[in-house]
């Protein structure tokens, strides 16, 4: 193990030991790199579907239990989430710069930037841990510690000012006519009793409200937190795996174990890291921002 020799001041350092070796099953170095990139993208495609199914489930329940989801989301700290987005975007920048350094054969620089990526990734998980601890103390963890007390702020000073979104909807829906406007024509007169509304919203079918009232506001809010913990937890697992792989690759780059294989390893973990960043780019608005204008 020797100390890193390449420095940022010497960008195109063409040491013969740093030249990429062409493996015999490939025609040329371009094809060799393309094979790795395509393999990684095939994996990322399965990851897109993996997270996509959860996001779709969230969209469906968000439509069905909209008011309770708004109340539940008000417990999340918008600013901690925004800070975490900032941290993760910064880690994506350092990772992209690490790939750039690796392509320019700036080994020491690449190692530094990989370590910076790990630091930002760990900071993200730290903030997430703080948020989950708060959720635990506020009894918002389904199945482990759950006690629904309404939206954030409602239990401090109970009054009409802290009316929940669910209560507001319930008030406008009193009487037989759940829609406030008069002369409303039912959109689906052939609706059958007990129909689960899905995406269509309130209807004039009296059985609809009976059916829906069986699910309490607390249970609907609990559904939000089930999806919240599944999505952020799955994302955090990806972050932990990513940090571990970045650590291994940073070490192997530093001690020259990866000499002769080009920048491929750093490029591939870079693709993974940016993908995990993209997942959070979607998770942040759908989980944190749906209740902001009410708070």
């Amino acid at each position: 193990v020797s100390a890193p020799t390449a420095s940022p001041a010497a960008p195109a350092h063409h040491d013969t030991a740093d030249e990429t070796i062409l493996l015999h099953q490939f025609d040329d170095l371009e094809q060799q790199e393309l094979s790795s990139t395509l393999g990684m993208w095939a994996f990322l495609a399965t990851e897109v579907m993996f997270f996509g199914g959860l996001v779709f489930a969230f969209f469906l329940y968000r439509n069905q239990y909209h008011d309770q989801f708004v109340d539940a989301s008000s417990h999340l700290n918008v600013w901690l989430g925004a800070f975490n987005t900032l941290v993760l975007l910064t880690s994506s920048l350092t990772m992209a710069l690490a790939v750039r350094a690796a392509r320019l054969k700036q080994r020491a620089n690449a190692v530094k930037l990989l370590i910076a990526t790990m630091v930002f990734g760990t900071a993200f998980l730290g903030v997430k841990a703080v948020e989950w601890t708060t959720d635990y103390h506020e009894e918002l963890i389904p199945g482990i510690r759950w006690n629904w007390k309404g939206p954030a702020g409602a239990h401090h000073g109970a009054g009409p000012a802290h009316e929940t979104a669910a209560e507001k909807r319930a008030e406008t829906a009193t009487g037989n006519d759940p829609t406030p406007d008069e002369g409303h024509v039912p959109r689906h007169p052939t609706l059958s009793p007990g129909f689960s509304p899905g995406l269509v919203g309130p209807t004039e079918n009296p059985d609809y409200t009976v059916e829906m009232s069986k699910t309490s506001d607390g249970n609907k809010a609990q559904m939000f937190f089930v999806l919240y913990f599944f999505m952020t937890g799955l994302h955090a697992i990806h972050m932990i795996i990513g940090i571990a792989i970045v650590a291994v690759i940073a070490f192997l780059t530093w001690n020259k174990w990866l000499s002769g294989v080009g920048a491929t390893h750093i490029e591939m973990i870079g693709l993974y890291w940016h993908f995990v960043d993209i997942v959070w780019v979607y998770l942040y608005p759908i989980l944190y921002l749906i209740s902001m204008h009410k708070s």
Partner: protein
Amino acid sequence: MSAIDQPYSHSHGSATGHGHANEPHVMPLSLYYMIFAILLALLILTVAIAEFDLGSMGLAVAMIIATIKAILILMYFMHVKFSPPLVWVFSTAAFAWLVLLFVYALNDYFTRMWMDVLGK
């Protein structure tokens, strides 16, 4: 083989501006910082817009901003913009399958009430 090689070599050559196959494509540092600045601006924008009640449009606007951010990360940080066509096919297919999932599942959820079918 040549069908894969040729467009790849062509796009690589035109994107980098030189013909050396062993020279990797590298973007200038300023471009990385510019993309990062745009991403931060979009983050501030999505939080600022969430302050206003846009009704059902709120989610759509947030998703459009998130998609712009995702495309910037895909194109520049993940280098898809400078990658051979086959990488475009793979990366686009990943999200195209997601669109299929959403479209056909929504197809089901939107139309469930249209007919009086037992067991739905």
